[in-house]
């Protein structure tokens, strides 16, 4: 036996070179974040980009426009509950909604792979037409490219969208002062200084209250419905899993829910859709931006039984699984009941639930109280969520 008694141990693993794009750079977690912070923001820095929101809010001729873009590379192209077409429309519509903007116009860029069946393209385009009609948006410009067989995955779609921020009662207000940024909480500093973002509120946003910069201690966190359906629907097809009751993607336009909140005069502090990286990643971004602690209660977080079961089998955590028709909304604690009652009346958000609250310390942290009463930190996703061995 080789020195098991003396245990002269070290770990034979050197640091890995970081010189290529890996899949996790597109996973929505920390590597995506690093890519944005280290490559894109330095190159393109400007006031609108500095908002670091789902879309940019820009002033044009006295109006406040929201502008956003998103690319869709989902495999399989057609999945339970939707396809890449309605995903491409709803994804961009939802990014506009997260700015508090009514969606109006979309563009669509198609990258098609040689050999794609025309019938598949027709199915996808029909879904886009239907989704656009349902969301009351027009596809007003577009582009098509075809690449060699093997250079694409059937269809890639990029959509960009323009929306308008209207004068709802909840919107015309000052950005909230919360000058605790960087204030020490007594907790040891976290080792991710280079990742941290100090939010910069651009002057053009002074009168738009919706955004991470408005989140403050005392806010309640509401999610608009149960989590993880889209990611599990996709995985179930990829892995050939079958469930007693099939899981359909939650892919949907969430603007009706946002519009209802705005109409009701709810004081919305922040909206975020829960796409790649799921609830955990979104909340980490906000906790980090605002140097606050977001406390979740596991027992309050809505997850469908079949989704939970699939996550257990696959070794995944529903907090990190992607959604395509769910968002988180931050509101003052006093307005929780009002916001929930508004949301529950809208179809797309009838499963809304309060899941946690914002506290001052420890900063830059998301904490979850488990069902059995223990606490854990919910970190940003590192790389892709990988299935465990056993």
């Amino acid at each position, binding site marked *: *036996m*080789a*020195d*098991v*008694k003396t*245990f002269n*141990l*070290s*770990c*034979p*693993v*050197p*640091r*890995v*070179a*970081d010189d*290529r*794009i*890996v*899949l*996790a750079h597109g996973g929505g977690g*920390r*590597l995506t974040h*690093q890519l944005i912070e280290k490559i894109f923001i330095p190159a393109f820095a400007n006031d609108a980009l500095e908002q670091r929101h789902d879309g940019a809010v820009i002033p044009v001729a006295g109006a406040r426009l929201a502008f956003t873009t998103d690319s869709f590379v989902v495999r399989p192209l057609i999945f339970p509950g939707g396809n890449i077409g309605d995903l491409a429309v709803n994804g961009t519509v939802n990014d506009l909604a997260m700015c508090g903007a009514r969606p109006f116009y979309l563009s669509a860029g198609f990258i098609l792979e040689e050999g794609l069946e025309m019938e598949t393209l027709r199915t996808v385009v029909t879904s886009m037409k239907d989704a656009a009609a349902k969301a009351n948006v027009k596809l007003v410009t577009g582009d098509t490219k075809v690449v060699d067989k093997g250079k694409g995955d059937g269809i890639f779609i990029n959509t960009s969208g323009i929306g308008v921020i209207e004068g709802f009662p909840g919107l015309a207000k000052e950005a909230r002062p919360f000058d605790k940024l960087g204030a020490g909480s007594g*907790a*040891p500093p*976290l*080792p991710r200084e280079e990742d941290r973002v100090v939010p910069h509120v651009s002057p053009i946003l002074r009168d738009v209250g919706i955004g991470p910069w408005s989140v403050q201690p005392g806010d309640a966190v509401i999610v608009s419905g149960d989590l993880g359906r889209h990611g599990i629907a996709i995985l179930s097809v990829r*892995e050939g899993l079958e469930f007693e009751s099939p899981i359909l993607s939650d892919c949907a336009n969430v603007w009706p829910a946002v519009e209802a909140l705005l109409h009701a005069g709810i004081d919305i502090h922040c909206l975020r859709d829960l796409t790649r990286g799921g609830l955990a990643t979104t909340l980490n971004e906000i906790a980090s931006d605002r140097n606050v602690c977001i406390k979740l209660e596991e*027992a309050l977080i809505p997850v469908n*039984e079949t989704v*939970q*079961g699939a996550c*257990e089998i*696959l*070794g995944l*955590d529903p907090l990190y699984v992607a959604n395509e028709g769910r968002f988180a909304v931050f509101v003052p604690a006093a307005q929780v009941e009002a916001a929930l009652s508004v949301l529950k009346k809208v179809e797309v958000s009838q499963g809304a639930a309060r899941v946690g609250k914002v506290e001052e310390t*420890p900063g830059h*942290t998301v*904490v979850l*109280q*488990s*069902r*059995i*009463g*223990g*606490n*854990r*930190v*919910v*970190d940003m996703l*590192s*790389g892709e969520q*990988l*299935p*465990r*061995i*056993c």
Partner: protein
Amino acid sequence: MKFLSEYRDPKLAEQLAAAIRKKVTRPWTIMEICGGQTHTIVKSGLEDLLPREITLVHGPGCPVCVTPIELIDKAVAIAKRPDAIFCSFGDMLRVPGSSKSLFDAKAEGADVRIVYSPLDALKLAKSNPDKQVAFFAVGFETTAPANAMAAWQADREGVENFSLLVSHVLVPPAMEALLSSDNCVVKGFLAAGHVCTVMGFEEYFPIAEKYKVPIVVTGFEPLDLLEGIHMVVCQLEEARHEVENQYVRAVRREGNRPAQKTITEVFEISPRQWRGLGEIPASGFQLRGRFQKYDANRRFPYSGEPAQESPDCISGMILQGLKKPHECPAFAVKCTPENPLGAPMVSSEGACAAYYHYGRRQNVQPELSSPASR
């Protein structure tokens, strides 16, 4: 939900925690063997419920963590062959070898695929007859039956373009290695429930007797773990050292005989290198007899340099329970899940990754270099 929420009931958890608090009179260090148990403990914040007398240390039962670096290098070398499809369970992909991980190889064009079962890899071999399909057969006794079955079926169906890169390890020899070490701090064990589902628990009786240590076969849900801890604490406080079974809904004393038969038919016991523990005799499996034609080691001779050791990572101490992850100076500073220095930072079952993700880093203690308490 059936078999899920029942085992996460907050009232029952509090009752068990209260029973542990009532029973305990002095400090005890208990090791959970399996990475799946570590995962549950940290994910559910279970240690918050335990009295301060109880210290849990996280054992070597994470297949990703104990697979030697040479094997990763071999896997990468096979994956990079132009005629190869390399299949693996998901969390092996991020483990860095001497210079790269399977993920890196994939980014450079290698055909690396995540599968959920070795039989899926066999299927791939059948549908890609012009390719060499290799499967990374890692794990403890739990994954051995399925891996054995893949070789057995390949043999029966005469599939020749399929092979297994085997790195199978066994729990009882690792427990003995830990217990026979001079600096062993562990006073009681939670044995790995799923390993015992396959193997039963008869082989633990001699260990409990020889080292006077309580061993409780334990499941993976929060209530399982609390009950297992309670049973170990009762034994320790009453100066007993027995083998008990908490996980009765899944584990029988004799285990799963048909699974054991398949394992024995395909594999034979062999010495194995354990990352962090060194070579332990008779601590793993290798393909036997006529199944050796499926040994990827033989089929793809490897000529790489032996792996270089780096001094920064203390994963060996961590796998033995001598140190907690946050006691490593590199923890969360030089060593993170994106840039792991050691395998325990890679798998979600690895103690370091579990600590990193689920927040034990909040409790970083000042005396980073002090020896662990006995």
